[in-house]
Structure formats: C-alpha cells, structure tokens
C-alpha cells in the first residue's frame, strides 16, 4: 500500500464524505436511468413488433380485396383496426373496409369506417383522404351540412383542389350553383396543370351553365 500525500488524502476524505451523503441518490439515479432506458428500448421493440404484425395482417387484407368477399375484408380490416390502432396500417385498413362496404351496398358501415379513419389517422394526408370520402358518403345520404363540415376543415395544401371540388359537388346538390361555381373555380386554381382531373372540373363548371 502506497502512502498518499496529505493533499490526496484530503481529497479522498472529501470524496468519501460526499459519497456518504449522496451515494444512495447516485445509485438511485443510475437505476432509474437504466430502467428508463430499457423501458424505452422495450417499448421500441414492442412497437416494431406490433408494426411487423400489422404489416403482415395488412398484406393479407390487401390480397383479400381482390376476392370480393366483403365479409372477409371487413373482418381482416376490423382486426387491424382493433389490434394495431396506432399503426399506420389501421387507417388504411379502415379505408379499404369502407370501400368494400360501400361496394356491397352497406353505406352505414362505410360511413362509420371513414369516420374512424378520419379520427384515427396518424398522417394528415390520410386523414384528409378519409374526410373527402366521408363527405361523399354524407352527400349521398343528403346530409349536406355535415358533408360540408368535412370539407370546410383545412386539409394539407396538396388536397385543397379535391376538397374544393367536393365542396362544389355538395353545393350543386344543394341547388346553389353560384357558390358551387366559386368552389369549382377554387379547385381549378389548385389542381395540377397536367392533371386529367382538371378537365372534369372544367366540365362541371360548364355544366352549371355559364
């Protein structure tokens, strides 16, 4: 054992005293840190696992859409929405289920699924897609005010043209050609120069007369 000189000895004493006072805190902090870290890692791992499962389920759902078996599609989509609601697959599944229901004549379920997608979508663009389609469903049910409410919420800029176009459809159905024209014109201003949809909007304006 080497002998410490006085100064070193002093420092060691200070350190010891400090440890006596704060040692437990340090151990606690390290422990908390370790627990948090592993919790975060565990959470990430769990999330990744969930995403993988959702992805698998989604693949199955996608291939089912080709079979025209509405019940199967609905069940598969329902499962994703229920088990992995936080995953990006859930809203997509809801959109797919809504189409299957709509095509099978079940407008009520379609509306419910679109509402779900609009409420739960994690991506803004997906939410806007859901709102657009929801507005179309409500329009068919002649719930004009509710339909308008969907497209009066602000979408991400890229969906502005489709929103205005839908607004025009609703206003036309309400028998308000002047307002509808304004909406279609707004859609025309936003829609892509080369988009084929542009032509359709133009024709809708022409169809209003003038």
């Amino acid at each position, binding site marked *: 054992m080497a002998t410490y000189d006085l100064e070193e000895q002093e420092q060691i004493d200070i350190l010891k005293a400090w440890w006596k006072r704060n040692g437990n805190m340090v151990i606690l902090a390290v422990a908390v840190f370790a627990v948090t870290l592993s919790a975060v890692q565990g959470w990430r791992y769990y999330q990744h696992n969930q995403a993988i499962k959702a*992805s698998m389920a989604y693949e199955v759902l996608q291939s089912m859409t080709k079979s025209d078996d509405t019940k199967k599609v609905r069940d598969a989509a329902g499962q994703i929405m229920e088990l992995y609601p936080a995953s990006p697959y859930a809203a997509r599944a809801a959109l797919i289920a*809504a189409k299957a229901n709509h095509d099978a004549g079940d407008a009520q379920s379609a509306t419910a699924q679109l509402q779900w997608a609009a409420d739960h979508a994690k991506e803004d*663009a997906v939410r806007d897609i859901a709102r657009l389609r929801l507005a*179309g469903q409500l329009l068919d049910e002649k719930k004009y005010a509710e339909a308008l409410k969907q497209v009066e919420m602000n979408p991400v800029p890229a*969906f502005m043209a*489709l929103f205005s176009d839908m607004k025009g459809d609703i206003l036309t159905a309400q028998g308000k050609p002047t307002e509808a024209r304004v909406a279609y014109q707004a859609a025309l201003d936003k829609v892509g120069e080369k988009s084929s949809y542009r032509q359709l909007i*133009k024709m809708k304006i022409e169809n209003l007369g003038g």
Partner: protein
Amino acid sequence: MLDVIRERAQGWLAKVILALITVPFALWGVDSYLRHGGDGAIVAKVDGQTISKQEFNLALRDQKERMRAVMKASFDPTLLDKPEIRQAILNNMIEQRLLAGGAVKAGLVVSDELLVRFVSEIPEFQENGKFSQSRYESLLRAQSMTPPAFEARLRQSLMIEQLVDGLTTSSLLSNAALDSFVRINEQQREVVQAMIYPEQFMPQIKVGMDEIKGYYEKHKEEFRVPEQARLEYVVLSVDDLTFQMTATEDEIKKYYGEHVAQFQEAEQRQASHILIPVAVKAGDAEKKAAREKAEKLFKEAKQSPGNFAELAKKNSQDPGSAANGGDLGFFARGAMVKPFEDAVFKMSAGEVVGPIQSDFGFHIIKLTGVKPGKARTLAEAKEEIGLELRKQKAAKRFAEMAETFSNMVYEQPDSLKPVAESLKLKIQTSPWIGKKGGDVALLNNAKLLQAVFSDEGVKLKRNTEAIEVRPNALVSARIVDFKPASYKPVEELSVELGGRLQRELADVQATKQGEMALAKLSQGKEVSELKWGAPIMISRQAAGTLGEAAVGAIFKADAGKLPVFTGVHDTKGGYLLIKVNRVVDSGHLDDAKKKGHAEKLRQLLMQEYYAAYVASLKQKADISIKNDQLEKVEH
C-alpha cells in the same frame, strides 16, 4: 397466407419484380442507402438524401433502353437531351425517394419473413415449382445485382406499395359524383351552326408594302435559314474494308474443318404419347394408382401399336396433344423434360415404351418419325464462311488502320488528302447539311455535327478528329463551303406575307361580325344573312368535327331558356355561331355503360389521389435540384 401471397406473386407484383430484375436501374433509390451516396456530383437532394449524377445517368440510360425497345427504329436518342424529358426522369426519381422516405416516416415495416415469402413465391426463381437459391443468385448475378441489394429494392417497393396502394385503390364513388359524371358525359344537345368565313371580307382588305414589312419584322424568326455547310469527309469502316478483303479456298476449308459443329443440324424426332398425370408432391397411393393405370395402357399399346392414336385420344390427359392422337410433332434435344427426351432418343421408330415417369406424370411413348441430323456441306457453307473470314480480316485491318487514321487527320488538320492517299480511302463530298444533319445518314451524328459546326470547324475549316459515328466506323470531316444563318428577304416573301396578313385582318373582321350577330341573336333579333346548317345532335364524347372550344361553349350555354345562342372563334379562322335547340339527358343507361363510366371516374380519382398524396409529401420535403447538373454536357 402462402396461397394469398402466391396469388399476388403471380399477379402484377410479380411483373414489377420482374421489371426490377430485368431492368437493373436506379430509379428506386435504394442504392443511395447501400452505397455511400457515390462520390462526386449531385443532381438533387431530397430530405438530405442525394441523387447522384451517376444514379441519374443510370436512370437516363435505362430510360433510353426502354424507349429504344418500344419505339424501335423511330427512336431518336437526342430525345433524352431535351430538358423537359430529363426533368421528368429526375422528377420520377425524386418521387420514388419521397415515397420511400414517406413509408419510413409513416412507420411502415416489411419484415424479413414477409420478404422471404415474397421472394420464394416468385415463379422466375423457382425450379420444379420450388424456390431455388442457386437460380435466384444466378439470375441476380446476370443483372449484376447482389441478393441484399435486390432484397432492399424489393423491400422498398413493397413498402411504397403499402404506403400508397390502400389509399388509391380504396377510392369509392359517391353516387352523386357518379351521376354528375354520367350526366356530363352522356348529355346530348341539338345544335345548328352558321359560319362566318374570313374569305368573304378578303376583297375589301388591301395591304401595302409597309404593312407587309411590319408583319415581316414581327414574324422574322419564322424565316430564319439556319447555317449550312457542305463537307468533304473520309470514312474508315469495317464494312467498306470487308469488300476489299478476300478469302482463299484453303482458308475456307480450314475454317470449315475447325467449326464442324456449327454446320451440323441436330437430329429431330417425332413422338406421340399418352399422359397419366400425377403431381410430384402426390402421395404414394396416388402415384401407385397412376402407375398401374399407365402399365395397363402400356400393355394395350404394345399389343396393337397401330391403335396408339386411338388409345391416346381416349386416355391421354395431356390437353395439348390428346386430340391429335398424342402427336407432339418433331423436336430436337432440349425441348422436352429430361426423362422423356432420354427415352425418345433411345427408341427406334415404331417402338412403344412406357411408362416413363417425369414431373408431369407417367408417359407411354411411341416413336413415329426420325429426321437424322445432317451436316451442311462445304459447298453449301462456302459463301457464309467466306463472308465471315473477310469480316474478320477487315476487323483486324480496321484495328491496324484506325490509329493512323486518327493521327493523320489530327496532325494535318487542313486537308483530308494525306489520310485519303496514305490509307487509300475516298474523299466524299456531302450536299448542304445543317447543324441537325441532312441526307447523308452517316454524318447525322451529334458529336460529328457539333465538331463540324464548332468555331474551329467553321472559321478554320479544320478536319474534325476521327469520330466513331457508329460501331466500327470512323469519320473525319471538314467544311468546304459555308453559308451563315440568314433571313429570307422580305421581297421574296411579299406575296405570301400579303396573303397571310390579308387573311388575318379578314379574320378579325369576321370575328367582329360574328360577335355582333351573336349579340343580336341573344336579344331575340333575327340576323338574316346567316346560313344555318341542319340540326345535329352532339355529346362531349361524340362531337363530330367540332373543336374543343366549340364543345365547351355548347355545353356551357345556359339550358334554362331554349333556344340559346353561343359562338366561338374558329381556330382555322372565322367565327362559328351556334344555336342550341334542345338538351337531351341520358335516359336509362344499361349496366355495362354505367360500369364503364364508374370505372373511368374511379381511375381519374385514383390518379388524382395519388398525385395529391405525392404532392403532400413533396410540400413537406426539402428538395433542391442542381440545374447545371441536370443539363446535358457535351464531351
């Protein structure tokens, strides 16, 4: 699950994957994950991810190949020098980057398990219905791709598919939208037309020389005559040299002797068969039953070989051949499955053997014909060999001469005579040609034309360097006569321009007249001098000879109070007045027609959703494009 994937693996996705492996290109952007961005120039940056010059060039090259494959001879490689095309290709690459990035950001995952299943279900990677690792690797190697690189690409396309497909294909049509779409497309309107032609105003319009000059100045660019030159040029090509070469009898004989195999035609055999199918995976009992059945048929066939066709017609379960009495026609080795082939090429004519087992099941085979292999004689092959030998000699000679050619045109840049004399080439002269080429196909090479019309070429009339205008053909050219760009003088054009100007002014008159008439008609007044045609029914889809503007005007006309008048300036000159008599909305549509409209509208919506979705990614992304890197650089 597996069935599901198999079903999809054989559908469109399989095609995408096939495109991925057969078209080794970088549009999909994975390479930048795998490689270190590549060193050197960058064309664009998408959210920190780069598109390197190298990747862009690869994409360009692949686009070129695809266009060449589709357009064949009419393909013009300079098309890809057009800025808008290059921009479009870059946009496509950016879009892929955006989608790939979007998929990651959204939290989409494609697991290894899923990937493995996909790969193993792709028919191209299978042997005998099963995934084959060696086939997989060799197919990829043939495209100079490694499995990890391919898998990364595949994973990315799967993720993009997950990201976008569910959003677009789930487009649903509201009844209101569909009804209005049908109405718009199916509505018919009965119209009569009256045209006010500019010609009727022509005699009153006089134009003087001053006006013509003014008109000329305004449209001067139309009358620009680009610079032209006449060239003299020398060509060194393997094709030309081939004519000068000779091949001796001895050489031909020697070649024939060394390449005997090349002049052999393989033996062909004709066989009929009866197939009792059984799957490779079938159980033992099933196999046994099939074998017994085949044995029985074999005995029958063996007893009366003459009735083989009859027997095959009744019993064979090969849908392709049963109806023809089992006849498979003539085939050489390599055309049939191995066990079948081995049996056929061991039999003698008329013999019946069986049952032979292959992957298809059990075969009973009768050999009905043999065409022995035959060799082409030396005399028959002589011409072909001679040409081949001359070509080989020419290629060798070309290689020897090419360097001298290149050096001489460069070292004595003011004349082509030295090179022509020393290599015994002919100096040829071209007719007038422009910067974009002319009637001599050989000279229509971008690099050559650029060199010819360069400063040095025009001012100093220097030889161009030796340029390979196509494989195995070198050309050097120099200008002998040059006409700078000029404008056709106005004097030469005065008649033509006078006519044009007169017609334009008459058109203005006609339009004015037409608009006045329309105003009167709209007030309910008569306009007596108009000649109305017969009423016709038009719809947007069947608009006859009417142009887009006229159709738009007709369907824009307020149908509230009929008849209603409208009018448009005709693109060919003149003013078209239109009277809409009545509007006929589509009555009941048959289902097929309605479905057609629904499908069309759905497609439109899907496209628009896709475009909007990509735009939404774009708006959030940080994209920078280096325009100077995008442009074509001449080397």
